[in-house]
């Protein structure tokens, strides 16, 4: 089993590398390949079981777009083939049509029907409680941007906000591509979803430290459901 982590030297904000450290515990036999900004992505020549990219700074988004532009068709092919992708934080925006930023427009890869808008004067912070299939998803938003999208959503909003103002869904799902603004790190926070995701990647492994992960999840879920607790 192979997991490719794209550009970890810059796509590493907000503790989201915790997703990878947790996967390494869940899949001790798997090979984790870190592709540097100066390197060639593994996915160009093979099909990893997961392609992961974490959140980055706004300047870094432009660098990543430049690096990934020549790979656009291959990314579309891999999504169509059902390869698993997990893009967290603002990383999914690079695959969108464009990012609007202070009167300028940064062209994205155009893989996803998604358009993002940045507002660097206002940072949006909130808890998120949502539903994905029969699972409850918990996570955190901490971002400058929002997006509108014609793609299928990742999770239905139960509490908190979706991808953009008034969205009833959070994130993007196309086949086994999962893009989400949620931070947390998502896989550590959501044992049910992580178990589901491991299967999707082709593994029968049980999630690591299941008892502790589930107890932490149950406690968080109760807090997120508690209407007396504010979201931000």
């Amino acid at each position, binding site marked *: 089993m192979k997991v490719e982590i794209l550009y970890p030297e810059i796509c590493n904000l907000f503790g989201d*590398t915790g997703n990878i450290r947790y996967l390494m515990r869940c899949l001790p036999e798997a090979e984790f390949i870190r592709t540097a900004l100066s390197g060639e992505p593994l996915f160009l020549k093979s099909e990893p079981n997961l392609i992961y990219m974490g959140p980055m700074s706004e*300047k870094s988004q432009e660098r990543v777009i430049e690096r990934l532009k020549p790979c656009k068709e291959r990314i579309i092919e891999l999504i169509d083939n059902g390869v698993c992708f997990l893009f967290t934080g603002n990383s999914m925006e690079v695959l969108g049509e464009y990012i609007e930023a202070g009167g300028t427009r940064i062209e994205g890869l155009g893989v996803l029907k998604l358009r993002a808008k940045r507002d660097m004067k206002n940072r949006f912070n909130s808890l998120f409680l949502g539903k994905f299939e029969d699972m409850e998803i918990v996570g955190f938003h901490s971002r400058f941007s929002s997006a509108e999208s014609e793609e299928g959503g990742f999770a239905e909003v139960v509490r908190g906000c979706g991808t953009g103002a008034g969205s009833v869904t959070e994130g993007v799902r196309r086949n086994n591509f999962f893009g989400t603004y949620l931070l947390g790190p998502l896989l550590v926070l959501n044992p049910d979803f992580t178990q589901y995701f491991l299967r999707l990647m082709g593994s029968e492994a049980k999630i*690591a430290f299941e008892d502790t992960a589930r107890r932490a999840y149950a406690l968080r879920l109760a807090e997120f459901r508690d209407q007396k607790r504010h979201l931000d």
Partner: protein
Amino acid sequence: MGTLRFYFALWCAKLIKLLLILVGRKGTYFSGKAAIKICPDFLGRIGKPETIIGVTGTNGKTTVCNMITDLLEACGEDVLSNRLGSNINAGVAAALIDGASLSGRCRKGIAVLEIDERSARLVYPYVRPDYIVCTNLFRDSMRRNAHPEYIASVLTEHMPKASKLILNADDLISSAIAPENERVYFGMDRLECESEARENIVMDISVCPVCGRTLEFEFRRYHHIGRARCECGFASAAPDYKAVSADFKNMELKVLERGEARKYTLVSDTVFNIYNELAAITLLRELGRTPEEIESALKRTGIVQSRFREESVGGKKVTMLMAKGLNAVACSRGFDHVSREQGKKVVALMYDDIFDEKQTSENIAWIYDVDYEFLNSDDIVQIIPCGVRALDGKLRLLIAGVPEEKITTLRSEGEIAGAIRYNDADRIFLLYDVYRYDIALKVLDEVMKKVREVHQ
């Protein structure tokens, strides 16, 4: 200066301050908050001292601010500062109100103001420091500070162009802020006692800001602090004031000042505080103080109060160590320190956000930026994550490779003293968030009581 509104705001603020003193409250920013509420451009209207020094940065700004204030006072200056108050715009206003007469004129000649990075846009349009010291920039609370590149851009946008900057040459992020401003750099050679840094999770800059290639570090002290260069020619700035050696036995710091060697009293035995001391020395030298004046002031001000507090009974040491929660680098520095100490160790962690625990649910993402992996060592025999988020702490420790049998989760800090396996430990570390000081102090008392019982 004054409109009627300004004077009304000033007098109200003075009255509020007086009332607060009468009820025994010091160091609040409430008077400043009220003044700005009444008169939004209050900061622009109130009288300022002739010389203003601003201190900003992610870590160390309070220490540097206090050190500069102490040194200037030891040099005979009457200094206005917000050291007892807050570092946001209201705190700066409160300090200026304290220093102002009823007519709004400033009665002091010099101010040393700690200014929060996020308050730059609210403070700098009105308060234009002659000098701004920026200690460093690391990632901090994601909710408030997003990421260091963003904070650097906020500082660059709002810092007055006329301010002379005192910058850390060993920090590629803060050393590049406000490129049009005049600047002076301080930095530090690799010290004899220093080994190459262990791998840190947080590396806030690892690619060249010019060409995007991976940076080559000649020496990395911790996280991204060190000396780096790129094959495109980009490199760390050359320090004007460079610490070349630190003698911890004789507490002596050797500094090359634009090539000329000087010796100063070392005020702390931690490398992090050498940067703080260097920042203060650089500022005072730029203010025109002689090395002799600074050295004499350093001798009089004495050792910097560190964020440690240590007590011991019969060879068992109990250490309180503070680090800002939500600040991954500060906590990682604490873990690094604990892991390098000798002996069998027990570590209690009290990092839950005191505000979030009751009102919302803490965003714990930051703990995945902290080097919990440093706590995975044979000589750490027990780790006690504590509080509402204890299970998150446990999960983080398990992912870091710490064996489950070493982890004791507790819901409340009050249970720590009873849970420590005293017979297994030579050292006990109580690591706590800045807002949990009183709680940690109580825990220290309870633990010391138990240590004494065990020892007898």
